[in-house]
């Protein structure tokens, strides 16, 4: 989230698209309803979804849409806003790259459906075709000073603004009706309501989740709406933003700590063994790519991170142990689906699974469980025995022929130990131990500590072990029972010699004198002298009282005072970065530093200095000058998006996405329709995993699979159901796998409400209870009646509830394809093809 959960109450309009907040993020609804029930100017809730959900039940406007067509809808909103002059011009002209002149060789060809620089090459060895983009033209024109050329009038046909108008001119309400199945009048009602937030002082927010991301163009879905938010002036303002609703209590935290393969902690890209053989080469490439963005501090982040990793062994001479640090092999994808392809192919031999249940949660689950059969060993560390460690005795498997050695390590649940959760709004909150671990169970960190201990013994004994120093030199100051507060101190960062914790990341050094496990957590755990409020006599007493409770750990603060009445709550736990609740908050005020709305005042220039409610995300004072003087508003107005090159909100994306600087509609890989927007059926850069014989895809218009399907969640269950399907109170509320379908479809198929039905895709089949409802409707797409169904993905074949009475897998993911987003490789689980018949 660019904002935080409580901030939802400041909004004037919610666009909930690709999310079911009421069901999957129930607490967000507390704040949404506060905004909707406000006496003065109550907020509007718009829900656009393939099905009428519990969220939709509270909506002012609801529109049924076809899964996978969001770019058409959002693109048309962009065209509508500009065409109707619903533009916050001051915002667009000052805070975005609208005026930048685009490279004259940049183009998009609707005939071919690709941007300039596209090429298709054939591997001479395998004969396989490879699609790629040379992104050289996805750039702006620069003057002799290296700065972008601009046309402040936004009239030059080469400027970003005009290029954007041209690009989205094809995205008309007629196309929305034709492609999404949203009637023109309904589209206009939505557009008029949402775009009204362009008015100065109004704000609107996008709330999205997997409904937007799980597509082969998921990143571009969100980017399209981000562009609309810039047009309307909705980024960086209270009640605005792009709010990703994270799927688990701590998925933000796990992302921060680099759960994903492409980054290491602190959102630093993973180095590449071919391109970054030295730290110097990594830093050089990074500095070139990030330009003027705050990321130019990367060398400090990386040196401090490596110091935390390798301690005394990390020296300037050995580039802080850069050689030991893991690197990606050039051209190799390490994402979830790629790993399972590699297991299936037999190249990956061992699998360590923690807090995940791929036999239920992974796409093309039959293929993924088959891949597990080819492993030598598998370790599963879990609080419940679930489907994955039992893949060898899954329905239909022959246990005698499976040789994989499976180890199940009992983990304990949060509450049986202490630590932090980082909420979807980046708020890091300490949770306390309220019970003791059961039996032999241990917390994850302790298990890894033990594994490291054993590994060290093995590496020590084997002088020839590869990358031996990386294991032997790892700095590990923790005992067998790890104190999680000490881990938080490492994330916060400290001076290496004195072990004094750092104030925040601004004091990090690139000479190895500071260690920091994750620069974005810098400031979560300061020393007493740096504790917030200690520096002013008027706040000293309160600060001392707070410190007495937290001992410096700011994630333990529980003061819910809302200073300024703007839902900032600065002393409620701690928010990264530097307790900043709304990122890009320079944009909450106009170029002269006055808030767009006095009732949403989080940053104001009073003529001599900045008066802040939130922590500034811009240079409010200049510590480099004597006396740390205030910096007038025009300076920060020229660099409001400090994490982006040139400091401007990007309508034109500068070569950071692989599939285009503007977004373009492509059809889902499995679809019933030809792409009506351009000449490329699918995203040319989509990640298609097709190495195994189990990677099947239905062809366009395959008559065997005439129904569009998607997966989703319900309030009562969580993710792959590992925890909730073992909880009787939750199981009694949602006991069975089900599929929601329209009454019309059910009638044609002879299905009654409550019947068991078979759901089949080209990859697999499962059974489900038919929930026949008006909440799903037959959509009119391209003049054709189109059926959409939806299933929860929580069920499987283990636990006190599997989803049904038979010995089969009730996992919806046996149906989903293993194709993924061009940028992130998240699977396309929200739009694929199935058929349904009565069981």
């Amino acid at each position, binding site marked *: 989230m660019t904002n935080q959960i409580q901030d939802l109450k400041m909004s004037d309009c919610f666009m909930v698209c690709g999310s079911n907040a009421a069901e999957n993020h129930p607490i967000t609804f507390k704040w949404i309803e506060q905004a909707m029930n406000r006496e003065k100017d109550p907020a509007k809730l718009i829900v656009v979804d393939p099905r009428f959900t519990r969220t939709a039940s509270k909506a002012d406007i609801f529109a049924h849409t076809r899964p996978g067509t969001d770019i058409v809808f959002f693109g048309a909103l962009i065209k509508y806003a500009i065409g109707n002059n619903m533009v916050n011009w001051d915002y667009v002209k000052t805070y975005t790259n609208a005026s930048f002149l685009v490279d004259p060789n940049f183009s998009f060809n609707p005939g071919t459906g690709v941007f300039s620089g596209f090429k298709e090459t054939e591997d001479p060895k395998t004969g396989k075709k490879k699609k790629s983009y040379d992104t050289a033209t996805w750039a702006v024109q620069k003057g002799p000073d290296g700065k972008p050329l601009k046309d402040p009038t936004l009239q030059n046909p080469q400027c970003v603004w005009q290029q954007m108008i041209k690009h989205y001119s094809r995205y008309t309400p007629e196309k929305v009706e034709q492609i999404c199945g949203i009637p023109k009048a309904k589209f206009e009602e939505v557009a008029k309501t949402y775009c009204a937030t362009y008015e100065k002082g109004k704000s609107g927010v996008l709330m999205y989740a997997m409904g937007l991301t799980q597509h082969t163009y998921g990143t571009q879905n969100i980017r399209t709406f981000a562009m609309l938010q810039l047009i309307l002036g909705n980024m960086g303002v209270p009640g605005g933003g792009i709010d990703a609703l994270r799927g688990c209590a701590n998925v933000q935290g796990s992302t921060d700590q680099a759960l994903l393969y492409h980054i290491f902690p602190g959102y630093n890209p993973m180095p590449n063994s071919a391109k970054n053989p030295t730290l110097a080469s990594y830093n050089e490439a990074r500095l070139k790519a990030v330009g003027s963005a705050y990321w130019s501090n990367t060398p400090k982040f990386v040196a401090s991170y490596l110091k935390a990793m390798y301690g005394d062994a990390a020296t300037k001479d050995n580039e802080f142990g850069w050689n030991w640090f893991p690197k990606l092999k050039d051209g190799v994808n390490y994402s979830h689906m790629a790993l399972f392809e590699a297991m299936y192919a037999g190249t990956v031999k061992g699998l360590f699974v923690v807090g995940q249940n791929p036999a239920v949660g992974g796409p093309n689950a039959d293929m993924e469980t088959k891949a597990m059969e080819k492993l030598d060993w598998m370790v599963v560390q879990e609080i419940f025995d679930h489907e994955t460690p039992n893949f060898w005795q899954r329905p239909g498997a022959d246990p005698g022929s499976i040789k994989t050695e499976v180890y199940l390590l009992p983990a304990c649940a949060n509450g049986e130990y202490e630590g932090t959760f980082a909420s979807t709004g980046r708020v890091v909150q300490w949770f306390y131990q309220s019970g003791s671990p059961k039996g032999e169970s241990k917390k994850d960190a302790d298990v890894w500590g033990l594994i490291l201990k054993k590994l060290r013994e093995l590496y020590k004994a084997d002088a020839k072990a590869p990358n031996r120093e990386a294991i032997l030199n790892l700095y590990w100051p923790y005992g067998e029972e790890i104190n999680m507060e000490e881990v938080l101190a490492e994330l916060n960062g400290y001076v290496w010699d004195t072990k004094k914790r750092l104030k925040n990341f601004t004091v990090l050094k690139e000479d190895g004198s500071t260690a920091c496990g994750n620069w974005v957590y810098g400031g979560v755990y300061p020393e007493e002298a740096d504790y917030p409020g200690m520096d002013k006599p008027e706040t000293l007493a309160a600060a001392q009282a707070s410190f007495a409770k937290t001992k410096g750990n700011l994630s333990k603060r529980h003061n819910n005072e809302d200073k300024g009445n703007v839902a900032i709550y600065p002393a409620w736990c701690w928010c990264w970065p530097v307790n900043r609740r709304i990122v890009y908050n320079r944009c909450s005020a106009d170029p002269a530093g006055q808030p767009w709305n006095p009732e949403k005042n989080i940053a104001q220039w009073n003529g001599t200095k900045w008066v802040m409610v939130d922590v500034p995300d811009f240079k409010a004072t200049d510590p480099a000058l004597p006396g740390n003087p205030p910096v007038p508003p025009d300076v920060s107005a020229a660099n409001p998006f400090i994490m982006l090159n040139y400091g401007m909100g990007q309508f034109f994306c500068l070569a950071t996405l692989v599939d285009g600087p503007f977004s373009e509609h492509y059809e889902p890989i499995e679809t019933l329709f030809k792409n009506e927007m351009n000449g490329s059926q699918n995203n040319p850069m989509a990640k298609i995993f097709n190495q195994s014989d189990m990677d099947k895809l239905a062809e366009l218009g395959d008559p065997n699979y005439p129904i569009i399907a998607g997966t989703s969640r319900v309030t009562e269950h969580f993710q792959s159901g590992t925890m909730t399907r073992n909880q009787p109170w939750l199981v009694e509320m949602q006991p069975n796998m089900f599929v929601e379908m329209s009454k019309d479809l059910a009638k044609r198929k002879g299905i009654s409400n409550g019947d068991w039905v078979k759901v089949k895709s080209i990859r697999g089949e499962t059974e489900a*209870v038919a929930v026949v409802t008006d909440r799903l409707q037959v959509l009119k797409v391209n003049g054709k009646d189109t059926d959409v169904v939806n299933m929860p993905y929580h069920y499987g074949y283990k636990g006190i509830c599997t989803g049904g009475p038979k010995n089969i897998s009730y996992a919806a993911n046996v149906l989903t394809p293993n194709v993924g987003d061009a940028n992130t490789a998240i699977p396309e689980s929200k739009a694929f093809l199935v058929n349904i018949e009565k069981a």
Partner: protein
Amino acid sequence: MANQKAILVDTTKCTACRACQVACKAWNENPGEKTENMGSYENPPSLSSYTWMRILFNEYYKNDKMTWLFTKHQCMHCTDAACVEVCPPNATTHKEYKLPDGSVLKTVATDPNKCIGCNYCRVACPFDVPGYNQKEKGIFRCTMCFDRVTNGVAKYDVPACVKACAPGTLSFGDREELIATAEKRVAVLKKAGYAKARLYGVNELEGLTYIYVLTDEPSAYGLPNDPSIPASVQVWKALTKPYGLVAAAGLVVALVVNGVINARNRGLEEKYKLDQ
């Protein structure tokens, strides 16, 4: 009903997350029941000795517009409570708990030591609150969490369902104040175009302990539009309470009524598979 405590259910804010349903089970240590999906999210299919409250889901599709109504179903703790009236051994009675702030928590409860398991209360109840549980030897229903409310750390604690409610659907407080809040809410809803917005529970059966804000007829939510004490109970009352009646005639009529009630009871058993 001055100073009486009540729960306000503002259904317009309910998202059917059912945290209340789980909180009720958790606080009262009631087990999960074995259920099946019958084509709806609503489950368990009825109240029981182990399920003292549940959220009802009702959906309507009219003029291309979908409405999905949610409401909370449990014992209403009626002032004019049929179950109290009908109970032969006077096992089911009104209870009162005095709270430190001077207010009163009123409930309807059944004393298991006096209960004879006749199930008349079940038949008489206009809200379908369950009757005698053979296995557990008693009648179990919403208690208004008197054990939380009367044992609060501060003035009083709120019932478990209220504590769990995130969107602000449920609130616990002084009945008159809650009614005033609800009236304001209804006015806002009417202004916003909900012509049928109304209060429910203020005057029904001389006042329920649960007050509802609705946007449609109660029946659209699965609540009786005009809850009343069944005619058979009225007859029962008329016959048993005035002692001057000829005993024999009374006995005859009572037997007839008894037969009617038992027949209906069997029907219900069939319908809801009453607890064994």
